[in-house]
């Protein structure tokens, strides 16, 4: 890791290494994106869908992503389920144990915002982004395994913009939905009505 970081620094400082840097980045991002091993941080209901995602019917292994229980061997933490105040230190510690580069997927409404437990609950943390840097959010209570697959593909796109050089971001087109997108649920003509609501 240290070597790679230094290489990135040298290439970006010299200003000469544009082509070399982009090629190395393309290779690095390809390998990182295609081999996203998951740390299944399944606490509640979503854990069932997380299990289902890696089993026979949905088979995450197809995307080169399979769950490892040991944080040291993983790249992406899938926080699936409600995180309570008692659990949060443990989740944070597991996240810290993962080696860089690492990503977080917040799976399910509880991990996104507290979901159904937003109101009246004295112990639920409203979203894991209170203490973890979340890269991809998946809505749903619980989301279907296909949503998780979609999240992995989205995360792959996000990784493809990253560089081994510090502070460099590649411009790649993300297929993330934007407002005005048909797939976003708002028809182009009716954007204002949507906003007014």
């Amino acid at each position, binding site marked *: 890791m240290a070597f790679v970081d230094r290489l990135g620094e040298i290439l970006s400082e010299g200003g000469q290494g544009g082509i070399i840097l982009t090629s190395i980045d393309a290779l690095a991002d390809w390998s990182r994106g295609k081999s996203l091993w998951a740390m299944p941080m399944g606490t509640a209901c979503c854990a069932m869908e997380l299990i289902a995602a890696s089993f026979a019917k949905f088979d995450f292994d197809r995307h080169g992503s399979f769950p490892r229980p040991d944080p040291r061997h993983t790249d992406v933490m899938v926080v699936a389920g409600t995180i309570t*105040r*008692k659990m949060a230190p443990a989740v944070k510690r597991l996240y810290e144990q993962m080696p860089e580069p690492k990503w977080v997927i917040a799976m399910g409404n509880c991990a996104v915002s507290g979901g159904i437990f*937003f*109101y*009246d*609950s*004295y*112990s639920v943390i409203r979203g894991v982004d209170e203490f973890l840097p979340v890269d991809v959010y998946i809505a749903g209570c619980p989301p279907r395994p296909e949503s998780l697959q979609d999240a992995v593909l989205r995360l792959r796109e996000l990784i493809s913009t990253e560089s081994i050089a510090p502070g460099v971001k590649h411009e790649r087109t993300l297929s993330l939905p934007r407002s005005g997108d048909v797939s976003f649920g708002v028809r182009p003509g009716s954007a204002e009505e949507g906003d007014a609501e």
Partner: protein
Amino acid sequence: MNITELRDHLCEQHPDLCPLFSIEFGDGVLSVSCDKLYEAASGLRDLGFDRLGMATAVDRGETFEVVYRLTSRSMSVGIFLKCHVPRDAPKTNSLFPLWPAALWQEREIFDMFGIDFEGHPDMRRILLPDDWVGHPLRRDYTDDRMIRRPDYI
């Protein structure tokens, strides 16, 4: 055995408990005072109530109502055992010596209501962290981190 047979059986075996017995929503309820709780419970156990199904408490304002649900396998019938402890000094006897099942359930009551059970071997919080302040299931529990749901109805 249905509930009226249970009442007759109870009155026969324990005449002192008979006037405390009532029937609510098809369930037998035995309301005792909390210093008599342990004796009443052991009496019921001798009567054949071998399972402690549920132990909980209800915030009734001035008092906390401690509720035990006992079940008899031989008679296929359940009964409630209730007593009221004062809110300012919540303390009662533990039923752990009679039914070990009370071990965790009474710990949970302690955690949620702050009711102290005498004779319980391990009176600690169970669900919440040890450094938690307050007992959440009391009606007057307040917490800055708790957002109250807006009243739509």
